[in-house]
């Protein structure tokens, strides 16, 4: 099985929240969506961006968890807290540099994106990337991501995999808005 990653092309987002709707439909998600879509400049324009768990290589949430409830899957996915282990201290929500983990006060339980582990462990794209109508979220091999980099021909700092716009190496690859600047027009 070829390793694939979640790849975000922020330029494409149309703010439809399909990713969030689809998130609620994943087998293990109990109808709760685990990610975010933001209006970038709500009083000015309609630009939006998804903010997904980036599945850090060295995840602050897991490092800060006193109960070792946040496990890292062999695929690199940083899983949601194990229900029996989570002690509800919310360290993870404070630790995450992107503010991703959500907390259910009533259930005294943290929950977060697990990259649809029941799908991705078998190489099936996660729900969000499956449905994303704008191809903001894609499920690609490293070769495909490299090909994208070549295609967009960007040396203007807009091509990003993780650093320096993120706080550390991540399993998810992010591509900032502005990629079209490097595209050569057909005519």
């Amino acid at each position, binding site marked *: 099985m070829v390793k694939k990653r979640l790849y975000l092309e922020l330029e494409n987002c149309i703010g439809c*929240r399909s990713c969030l709707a689809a998130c609620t439909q994943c087998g293990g998600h109990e109808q709760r969506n685990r990610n975010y879509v933001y209006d*970038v400049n709500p009083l000015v324009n309609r630009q939006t961006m998804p903010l997904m768990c980036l599945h850090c290589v060295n995840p602050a949430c897991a490092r800060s968890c006193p109960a070792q409830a946040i496990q890292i899957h062999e695929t690199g996915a940083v899983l949601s807290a194990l229900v029996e282990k989570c002690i509800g201290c919310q*360290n993870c929500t404070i630790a995450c540099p992107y503010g991703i983990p959500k907390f259910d006060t009533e259930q005294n339980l943290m929950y977060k994106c697990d990259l649809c582990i029941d799908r991705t462990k078998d190489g099936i794209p996660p729900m969000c990337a499956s449905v994303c109508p704008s191809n903001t979220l894609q499920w690609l091999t490293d070769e495909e991501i490299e090909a994208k980099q070549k295609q967009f021909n960007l040396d203007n700092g807009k091509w990003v995999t993780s650093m320096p716009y993120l706080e550390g190496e991540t399993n998810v690859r992010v591509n900032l808005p502005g990629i079209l600047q490097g595209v050569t027009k057909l005519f």
Partner: protein
Amino acid sequence: MQATNKMQMNSASTKKSTINDAFASKFAKSMFLTVLGIAVLMFIGTRMFTHIDLNLYGYMVGTIVFLGGFFYRFIAWGERPPTKIILKKGLKLVFSKRTAKTAVSHLAIYDFIKKRGFYRWMQHVLIGWGCILACLVTFPLVFSWMYFTMDDNGYYTVVVMGMDLLEIKADGIIAWFSYNALNISAIMVIAGVCMALYRRAKNMQARAEQKFIYDLMPLYLLLFISITGLLLTIQNVFLHGWMQPQMSLIHQFSVILTLIYLPFGKLAHIPFRPMSVLARNYREHYGEQNMKACKVCGDHFVSVEQSNDVIHVLGVNHIEFNMEDGFNLAELCLPCRRKYRISRFSGVPTHQVKVKEANQNARG
């Protein structure tokens, strides 16, 4: 504080000796003291070792091995920086007023599980209390902290810690409950485990996440213990003790096996669960003291103590989120932190726009 402690320990030889010097490690100390404690209690309970039920010695050995595993795991776990902080600060607050209430809610009636669904709560109550009841009966018997003596007048004397606690009628209600406590607990556990297995077979979420060894094995172990335990009663009552010694051995082995495995698998959450009471104390106590204001919007979102602790813990792991804008990411409330990231991506100061964020928690 921590650092100072460590230094004291390291330089103990040059300074005042402490009791710790007697032990090769924390583990050794914990084991020694616990085993010693049990031995003392046994000495008292058995009226100077005169009333030991040697049929149960296997359980005794099992318990000691369990303790070894437990301390091994717990100490390794407690040494992790985030765990250490909560343990230490939480234990300091253990005598606060709120402890009892939180402990009852978290450890006895499992309120938080009820919020995850009545079914799951019911199954957890059955398994949890079934096990607790069984332990409350078994271990005092194993270590002879409690035993029964039969008088001629149709009364039992219950002896607890070497003292005659009370006399009960042999065919009375208390006696009935005493004989059948383990049967009742077995039935509770069997019911609970069956509920759990049914849920795991049916519920897609549970299926998606479960791993056989991790999630199902403990259930099967509990089921096995409960069924073999019940069989002992059945053999006794209906089969005049047929094959009872053999079954007793099987039962005993299954209990010992489970005890040994307990600290290493899913059941480890039982001894570790009190941590959630400590965590709650920690959050509530420091939350009342001083709340951190978000560097962007000013909302109070976490205690200053926890914010600092998390920053410290991450530092120990060589993770630092100090921004050029002059703050640490842990100092932003969660919505502002997310918007700040969007602003880093877009170049637009999203976190400065004073508009409530769109619904991020719509349910499916």
